[in-house]
Protein backbone atom coordinates (compact mmCIF):
# COMPACT_ATOMS: atom_id res chain seq x y z
CA UNK A 1 0.00 0.00 0.00
CA UNK A 2 1.63 3.25 -1.18
CA UNK A 3 1.54 6.46 0.81
CA UNK A 4 -0.11 9.43 -0.88
CA UNK A 5 1.96 12.55 -1.57
CA UNK A 6 5.65 13.19 -2.13
CA UNK A 7 6.61 13.27 1.52
CA UNK A 8 6.73 9.75 2.85
CA UNK A 9 7.49 8.74 6.41
CA UNK A 10 8.11 5.67 8.44
CA UNK A 11 9.80 4.72 11.69
CA UNK A 12 12.28 2.22 13.02
CA UNK A 13 11.37 1.29 16.57
CA UNK A 14 11.69 -1.47 19.11
CA UNK A 15 8.76 -3.26 20.71
CA UNK A 16 8.73 -0.97 23.75
CA UNK A 17 7.88 1.99 21.55
CA UNK A 18 5.78 0.00 19.12
CA UNK A 19 3.20 1.85 17.05
CA UNK A 20 3.31 4.87 19.33
CA UNK A 21 4.67 7.44 16.87
CA UNK A 22 1.98 9.30 14.86
CA UNK A 23 3.83 8.79 11.60
CA UNK A 24 0.85 8.60 9.25
CA UNK A 25 -0.85 11.63 10.77
CA UNK A 26 2.27 13.76 10.41
CA UNK A 27 2.90 12.64 6.82
CA UNK A 28 -0.71 13.33 5.85
CA UNK A 29 -0.58 16.76 7.48
CA UNK A 30 2.57 17.67 5.54
CA UNK A 31 1.23 16.37 2.24
CA UNK A 32 -1.97 18.37 2.68
CA UNK A 33 -0.05 21.63 2.95
CA UNK A 34 3.24 21.09 1.13
CA UNK A 35 4.05 20.37 -2.51
CA UNK A 36 7.75 19.70 -3.05
CA UNK A 37 7.74 20.98 -6.64
CA UNK A 38 7.03 24.49 -5.32
CA UNK A 39 10.61 24.66 -4.04
CA UNK A 40 12.55 23.54 -7.09
CA UNK A 41 12.98 20.47 -9.25
CA UNK A 42 15.87 18.86 -7.34
CA UNK A 43 13.74 16.60 -5.19
CA UNK A 44 10.67 14.66 -6.26
CA UNK A 45 10.30 12.55 -3.15
CA UNK A 46 11.33 13.02 0.46
CA UNK A 47 11.46 9.89 2.59
CA UNK A 48 11.91 10.57 6.32
CA UNK A 49 12.68 7.82 8.83
CA UNK A 50 12.22 8.41 12.56
CA UNK A 51 14.52 6.11 14.50
CA UNK A 52 13.55 5.33 18.09
CA UNK A 53 15.83 2.60 19.38
CA UNK A 54 17.95 2.30 22.55
CA UNK A 55 21.33 4.05 22.51
CA UNK A 56 23.24 0.76 22.51
CA UNK A 57 21.81 -0.08 19.09
CA UNK A 58 24.44 0.94 16.56
CA UNK A 59 22.81 -0.63 13.52
CA UNK A 60 20.51 2.32 12.87
CA UNK A 61 22.57 5.45 12.36
CA UNK A 62 21.62 8.92 11.18
CA UNK A 63 22.07 9.47 7.48
CA UNK A 64 21.04 11.65 4.59
CA UNK A 65 21.11 9.98 1.17
CA UNK A 66 20.32 11.81 -2.04
CA UNK A 67 19.78 10.01 -5.32
CA UNK A 68 20.22 12.68 -7.96
CA UNK A 69 18.92 10.44 -10.74
CA UNK A 70 15.74 9.49 -8.89
CA UNK A 71 15.55 12.91 -7.21
CA UNK A 72 14.88 11.01 -4.07
CA UNK A 73 16.07 12.15 -0.66
CA UNK A 74 16.14 9.84 2.35
CA UNK A 75 16.70 11.38 5.77
CA UNK A 76 16.95 9.06 8.77
CA UNK A 77 17.46 10.58 12.22
CA UNK A 78 17.31 9.30 15.76
CA UNK A 79 14.77 10.52 18.29
CA UNK A 80 15.62 10.68 21.98
CA UNK A 81 14.60 7.12 22.88
CA UNK A 82 14.28 7.67 26.64
CA UNK A 83 11.99 10.66 26.15
CA UNK A 84 9.89 8.83 23.55
CA UNK A 85 9.42 5.91 25.96
CA UNK A 86 7.58 8.06 28.48
CA UNK A 87 6.06 10.66 26.14
CA UNK A 88 2.40 10.88 25.18
CA UNK A 89 1.31 11.11 21.54
CA UNK A 90 1.24 14.92 21.47
CA UNK A 91 4.78 15.11 22.85
CA UNK A 92 5.95 12.43 20.41
CA UNK A 93 4.54 14.47 17.54
CA UNK A 94 6.30 17.64 18.72
CA UNK A 95 9.58 15.75 18.96
CA UNK A 96 9.06 14.35 15.46
CA UNK A 97 8.32 17.80 14.06
CA UNK A 98 11.47 19.19 15.68
CA UNK A 99 13.54 16.35 14.27
CA UNK A 100 12.06 16.85 10.81
CA UNK A 101 13.02 20.53 10.96
CA UNK A 102 16.54 19.58 12.05
CA UNK A 103 16.84 17.31 9.03
CA UNK A 104 15.71 20.09 6.72
CA UNK A 105 18.16 22.49 8.38
CA UNK A 106 21.00 20.06 7.65
CA UNK A 107 19.98 19.96 3.99
CA UNK A 108 19.96 23.75 3.90
CA UNK A 109 23.36 23.95 5.61
CA UNK A 110 24.87 21.68 2.97
CA UNK A 111 22.93 23.31 0.11
CA UNK A 112 21.70 19.94 -1.03
CA UNK A 113 20.15 19.60 -4.52
CA UNK A 114 18.29 22.26 -6.50
CA UNK A 115 15.85 23.10 -3.77
CA UNK A 116 14.81 26.21 -1.89
CA UNK A 117 15.30 24.89 1.64
CA UNK A 118 14.79 28.32 3.22
CA UNK A 119 11.31 28.75 1.74
CA UNK A 120 10.51 25.16 2.64
CA UNK A 121 11.51 25.76 6.26
CA UNK A 122 9.41 28.92 6.46
CA UNK A 123 6.34 27.06 5.20
CA UNK A 124 6.98 24.21 7.62
CA UNK A 125 7.22 26.63 10.54
CA UNK A 126 3.77 27.92 9.64
CA UNK A 127 2.05 24.57 9.51
CA UNK A 128 3.74 23.03 12.56
Amino acid at each position, binding site marked *: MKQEGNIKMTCV*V*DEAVGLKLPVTELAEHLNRHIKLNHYGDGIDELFFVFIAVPDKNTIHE*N*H*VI*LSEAEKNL*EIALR*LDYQKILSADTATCRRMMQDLFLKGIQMCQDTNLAQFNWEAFQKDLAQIF
Partner: protein
Amino acid sequence: MRLQIQSSAASRNRPVNLIPRDAPKHPRKYDPLFWIILIFIFAFIGYELKPFLEKGVDGNLQLSKWRQQKLERELNELDEAEQYVLLALVSGEYPCYSCANTATIDLVKGHVWKYGYTTKSEKGRYQNSLKDQNLIYMIQHEGTITECMKEEKRKIYFYALLPENLTRAVPLIRPPGNKQDN
Protein backbone atom coordinates in the same frame (compact mmCIF):
# COMPACT_ATOMS: atom_id res chain seq x y z
CA MET B 1 31.77 10.74 -3.90
CA ARG B 2 31.24 10.45 -0.19
CA LEU B 3 31.04 13.56 1.92
CA GLN B 4 30.83 13.23 5.67
CA ILE B 5 29.84 16.09 7.93
CA GLN B 6 29.69 16.26 11.68
CA SER B 7 26.14 17.14 12.48
CA SER B 8 25.60 19.28 15.49
CA ALA B 9 21.94 19.39 14.55
CA ALA B 10 21.50 15.66 14.70
CA SER B 11 20.53 14.06 17.94
CA ARG B 12 23.41 12.73 20.01
CA ASN B 13 25.94 14.27 17.60
CA ARG B 14 26.23 11.18 15.44
CA PRO B 15 27.95 11.61 12.08
CA VAL B 16 25.62 12.13 9.17
CA ASN B 17 26.58 10.70 5.79
CA LEU B 18 25.64 12.67 2.74
CA ILE B 19 25.90 10.26 -0.13
CA PRO B 20 24.96 11.50 -3.60
CA ARG B 21 24.32 8.18 -5.32
CA ASP B 22 24.88 9.23 -8.90
CA ALA B 23 28.09 10.42 -10.48
CA PRO B 24 27.94 13.21 -13.09
CA LYS B 25 27.17 11.73 -16.50
CA HIS B 26 29.94 13.30 -18.63
CA PRO B 27 32.98 14.32 -16.58
CA ARG B 28 35.28 16.64 -18.51
CA LYS B 29 38.85 15.58 -19.23
CA TYR B 30 40.31 17.58 -16.34
CA ASP B 31 37.30 17.50 -14.13
CA PRO B 32 38.27 17.37 -10.42
CA LEU B 33 36.33 14.12 -10.28
CA PHE B 34 38.89 12.61 -12.68
CA TRP B 35 41.71 13.34 -10.23
CA ILE B 36 39.70 12.07 -7.29
CA ILE B 37 39.04 8.80 -9.11
CA LEU B 38 42.73 8.54 -10.03
CA ILE B 39 43.74 9.04 -6.40
CA PHE B 40 41.26 6.38 -5.32
CA ILE B 41 42.64 3.94 -7.90
CA PHE B 42 46.21 4.46 -6.65
CA ALA B 43 45.05 4.22 -3.04
CA PHE B 44 43.23 0.98 -3.85
CA ILE B 45 46.31 -0.48 -5.56
CA GLY B 46 48.45 0.56 -2.58
CA TYR B 47 45.95 -1.03 -0.20
CA GLU B 48 45.94 -4.29 -2.14
CA LEU B 49 49.73 -4.39 -2.28
CA LYS B 50 50.05 -4.10 1.47
CA PRO B 51 51.61 -7.31 2.82
CA PHE B 52 48.90 -9.62 4.14
CA LEU B 53 51.32 -11.99 5.86
CA GLU B 54 54.12 -11.33 8.32
CA LYS B 55 56.51 -13.31 10.45
CA GLY B 56 55.49 -13.75 14.06
CA VAL B 57 57.81 -13.74 17.10
CA ASP B 58 58.11 -17.52 16.78
CA GLY B 59 59.25 -17.17 13.17
CA ASN B 60 56.08 -18.64 11.72
CA LEU B 61 53.93 -16.84 9.17
CA GLN B 62 50.80 -15.17 10.47
CA LEU B 63 48.18 -12.74 9.20
CA SER B 64 49.46 -9.18 9.14
CA LYS B 65 48.04 -6.82 11.73
CA TRP B 66 45.73 -4.96 9.33
CA ARG B 67 44.25 -8.27 8.06
CA GLN B 68 43.65 -9.44 11.63
CA GLN B 69 41.97 -6.15 12.50
CA LYS B 70 39.78 -6.34 9.40
CA LEU B 71 38.76 -9.90 10.26
CA GLU B 72 37.87 -8.93 13.84
CA ARG B 73 35.88 -5.93 12.64
CA GLU B 74 33.92 -8.04 10.17
CA LEU B 75 33.28 -10.75 12.76
CA ASN B 76 32.05 -8.13 15.21
CA GLU B 77 29.66 -6.78 12.60
CA LEU B 78 28.19 -10.26 12.20
CA ASP B 79 27.63 -10.33 15.96
CA GLU B 80 25.61 -7.12 15.71
CA ALA B 81 22.46 -8.36 14.05
CA GLU B 82 18.78 -7.91 14.64
CA GLN B 83 15.59 -9.70 13.72
CA TYR B 84 12.79 -7.35 12.74
CA VAL B 85 9.19 -7.34 11.67
CA LEU B 86 7.62 -5.02 9.10
CA LEU B 87 4.13 -4.06 10.26
CA ALA B 88 1.27 -2.38 8.44
CA LEU B 89 1.24 1.29 9.40
CA VAL B 90 -2.35 1.77 8.21
CA SER B 91 -5.18 -0.59 7.39
CA GLY B 92 -5.43 -1.34 3.68
CA GLU B 93 -4.23 -3.42 0.77
CA TYR B 94 -0.64 -4.72 0.72
CA PRO B 95 1.31 -6.91 -1.72
CA CYS B 96 1.05 -10.60 -0.92
CA TYR B 97 3.71 -13.08 -2.00
CA SER B 98 2.36 -16.00 -0.01
CA CYS B 99 -1.29 -15.78 -1.07
CA ALA B 100 -2.44 -18.66 -3.23
CA ASN B 101 -4.63 -16.84 -5.72
CA THR B 102 -4.25 -13.12 -5.13
CA ALA B 103 -1.44 -10.62 -5.42
CA THR B 104 -2.65 -8.42 -2.58
CA ILE B 105 -4.07 -8.82 0.90
CA ASP B 106 -6.00 -6.57 3.29
CA LEU B 107 -4.08 -5.91 6.48
CA VAL B 108 -5.21 -4.13 9.62
CA LYS B 109 -2.88 -1.56 11.20
CA GLY B 110 -0.27 -3.43 13.24
CA HIS B 111 -0.59 -6.69 11.33
CA VAL B 112 2.58 -8.48 10.25
CA TRP B 113 3.69 -8.08 6.64
CA LYS B 114 7.16 -9.57 6.78
CA TYR B 115 9.85 -10.93 9.11
CA GLY B 116 13.53 -10.42 8.37
CA TYR B 117 16.98 -9.98 9.84
CA THR B 118 19.87 -7.68 9.13
CA THR B 119 23.45 -7.09 10.23
CA LYS B 120 25.25 -3.83 10.76
CA SER B 121 27.23 -4.26 7.56
CA GLU B 122 24.08 -4.70 5.49
CA LYS B 123 22.34 -1.66 6.86
CA GLY B 124 22.10 1.25 4.49
CA ARG B 125 19.19 2.72 2.74
CA TYR B 126 15.75 2.08 4.21
CA GLN B 127 14.11 2.44 0.82
CA ASN B 128 15.48 -1.02 0.05
CA SER B 129 13.65 -2.71 2.91
CA LEU B 130 10.68 -0.37 3.17
CA LYS B 131 10.08 0.30 -0.50
CA ASP B 132 6.55 -0.92 -0.03
CA GLN B 133 5.45 2.12 1.88
CA ASN B 134 3.20 2.34 4.89
CA LEU B 135 5.23 -0.22 6.77
CA ILE B 136 7.13 0.28 9.98
CA TYR B 137 10.29 -1.54 11.00
CA MET B 138 10.11 -2.97 14.51
CA ILE B 139 13.07 -4.69 16.14
CA GLN B 140 12.10 -7.94 17.86
CA HIS B 141 15.43 -9.55 18.74
CA GLU B 142 19.06 -8.42 18.92
CA GLY B 143 22.01 -10.80 18.91
CA THR B 144 24.41 -12.64 16.63
CA ILE B 145 23.51 -13.30 13.03
CA THR B 146 22.87 -16.98 13.80
CA GLU B 147 20.48 -16.15 16.65
CA CYS B 148 18.64 -13.67 14.46
CA MET B 149 18.38 -16.08 11.53
CA LYS B 150 16.92 -18.72 13.87
CA GLU B 151 14.55 -16.19 15.38
CA GLU B 152 13.39 -15.06 11.95
CA LYS B 153 12.75 -18.64 10.89
CA ARG B 154 10.74 -19.38 14.05
CA LYS B 155 8.65 -16.26 13.51
CA ILE B 156 7.98 -17.12 9.86
CA TYR B 157 6.86 -20.66 10.68
CA PHE B 158 4.77 -19.72 13.71
CA TYR B 159 3.09 -16.87 11.85
CA ALA B 160 0.62 -19.49 10.60
CA LEU B 161 -0.68 -19.79 14.18
CA LEU B 162 -1.13 -16.07 14.88
CA PRO B 163 -4.75 -15.07 15.58
CA GLU B 164 -4.59 -12.47 12.79
CA ASN B 165 -3.88 -15.33 10.36
CA LEU B 166 -6.22 -17.95 11.79
CA THR B 167 -9.22 -15.64 11.45
CA ARG B 168 -8.73 -15.54 7.66
CA ALA B 169 -10.96 -17.70 5.47
CA VAL B 170 -7.78 -19.21 4.01
CA PRO B 171 -4.85 -18.88 6.46
CA LEU B 172 -1.43 -18.15 4.97
CA ILE B 173 1.50 -20.51 5.34
CA ARG B 174 3.85 -17.57 5.97
CA PRO B 175 3.57 -13.75 6.23
CA PRO B 176 2.40 -11.88 3.11
CA GLY B 177 5.79 -10.22 2.55
CA ASN B 178 7.92 -13.36 2.94
CA LYS B 179 8.36 -15.10 -0.40
CA GLN B 180 10.09 -18.09 1.18
CA ASP B 181 10.67 -19.65 4.58
CA ASN B 182 14.03 -17.87 4.82
